[in-house]
């Protein structure tokens, strides 16, 4: 559903009335035709190959101890017990959840603030858009590399400044707090632009008369933001929260490059732990069970978010 359907009924009464367009009527315009399945068939086939078959294989792995395709033992639910009970896994889960929460708390408000401050017309709009979007187009391991260099105390500008200008001892390879901060700052650097661009797109879609009305009413800058801009951002912000939560929950490449999960286990998130078991040790059984639990968590969260997202549009 487009945001166009959620326009009516907002706080600003001075804005021109837009035609009421209840969601049901729009849905009814869609023709009921099961032949549409032929159109989605290519997607179903391609996703079956890239998702269903691998997932089935993971399920098969998860109940066996596999030495080779012919040498394998059925172990029932043993790997699942291990997956949900191993202290290391539980710690990684809490750590990942904490990280996602921090990411959301920092990136969402910051992104909205940047979007509000962004220029809206003229040549500088293009420049601003391109520069802000740039971090999103850098391969994730290069993002890792950039920060691996930048945060180093000896050769990186960031790390050097903190150590020698601010006089705070900072070394992300030795101190776990420093490592966590480095990863968090890196993620904020990398992904706040996404939130900013989303919010910017949302702000651009607000019709001019809303602002004129607010100005006639003598609304302050904050009031304008709180009562006109923020409500209209609900749709895009939900998408932003959804994407940021899911992507930060499965973060892998960047921390892998910068800290490799260390020092100790300080930055070993679920994905890093899983990859270590799956690719590093080639323990397909435990990795399979771990994957399924991980996937279940993602599914549940995804469904909750998706429901909220689509319901808020109604």
């Amino acid at each position, binding site marked *: 559903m487009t945001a166009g359907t959620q326009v009516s009924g907002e706080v600003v009464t001075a804005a021109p009335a837009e035609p009421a367009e209840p969601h049901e009527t729009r849905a009814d315009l869609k023709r009921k035709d099961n032949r*549409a399945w032929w*159109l*989605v068939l290519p997607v179903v086939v391609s996703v079956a190959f890239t998702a269903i078959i691998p*997932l089935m294989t993971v399920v098969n792995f998860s109940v066996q101890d596999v030495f080779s395709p012919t040498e394998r033992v059925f172990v029932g639910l043993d790997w699942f017990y291990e997956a949900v009970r191993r202290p290391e896994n539980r710690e990684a889960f809490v750590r990942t959840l904490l990280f996602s929460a921090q990411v959301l708390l920092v990136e969402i408000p910051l992104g909205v603030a940047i979007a509000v401050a962004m220029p809206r017309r003229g040549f500088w709009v293009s420049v601003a858009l391109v520069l802000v979007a740039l971090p999103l187009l850098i391969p994730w391991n290069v993002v890792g590399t950039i920060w691996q260099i930048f945060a180093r105390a000896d050769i990186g500008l960031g790390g050097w400044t903190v150590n020698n200008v601010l006089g705070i001892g900072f070394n992300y390879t030795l101190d776990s707090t420093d490592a966590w901060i480095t990863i968090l700052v890196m993620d904020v650097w990398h992904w706040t632009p996404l939130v900013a661009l989303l919010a910017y*797109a949302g702000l651009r879609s607000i019709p001019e008369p809303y602002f004129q009305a607010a100005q006639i009413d003598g609304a302050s800058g904050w009031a304008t933001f709180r009562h006109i801009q923020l409500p209209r951002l609900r749709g895009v912000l939900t998408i932003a929260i959804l994407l940021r939560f899911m992507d930060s929950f*499965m973060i*892998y490449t960047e921390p892998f490059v910068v800290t490799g999960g260390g020092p100790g286990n300080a930055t070993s998130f679920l994905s890093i732990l*899983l990859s270590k078991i799956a690719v590093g040790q080639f323990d397909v059984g435990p990795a399979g069970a771990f994957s399924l639990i991980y996937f279940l968590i993602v599914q549940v969260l995804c469904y909750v978010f998706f429901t909220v997202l689509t319901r808020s549009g109604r």
Partner: protein
Amino acid sequence: MARTTGRRLPWARTVFWLYVATLMLPVLWMFGMSIRPNEDILSSFSLIPQRVTFDNYVTFFTDVSWYSSYLNSIIYTSLNAVMSLIVALPAAYAFSRFRFAGDKHLFFWLLTNRMAPPAVFLLPFFQIYQSVGLFDTHLGVAIAHMLFNVPLAVWILEGFMSGIPREIDETAAIDGYSLPRFFIRIFLPMIRSAIGVTLFFCFMFSWVELLIARTITSVNAKPIAATMTRTVSAAGVDWALLATAGVLTIVPGAIVIWFVRNYIAKGFALGRV
């Protein structure tokens, strides 16, 4: 005088450009490292390079393992973008125009694939692609990346298509257009910008992905990102060469972004704004 499109606080402009400067700082720092010799980087800390050299870039473009993996990345990324688009177009049209059995569930299920942690799929991918002979091929990586790009493409395209009134389809049908002909002759030109945005996003997400690409390739289709790990050797890290490769991986993205700059924000809202 009516200030329009929101009121910007007086200091907003300054704060915004300060933010952009901060954003660029790490990238510029990496660029700075790429144009100095490796010995200089390690021997002393300095804001401005004392000796500027382009040797690292020369090394990159003359060493076959570097530039070939760079090409590999570009090939499979482009292939993936085109394939994802072709597969997603009819599906997005179906979702935006018809109601059919299980449509909502199918749509949601597609999205869950976008949200699936790639690490989950690593092992089976390795085995599937080996058993069907797609291991270490560009096509293999392109297909593997469809895992997250097809759902995204469907999502974006569906959003844009829903914004186009259904009356157009009906009028065309009355005029005697068949569905395929209508789709290619009338509908596709109308959603040109959506196609641009979709290609951009598919390119971007395929370009930045490393985990899957690295797992299902070894030599022939090895991505640039995987080659970058080579800079770590017994003699230590060749920071200068690593930075050079890093800078060069940003270039294709920067070029693509310039062409679609006006649609980026809209695409990020997945056509739903």
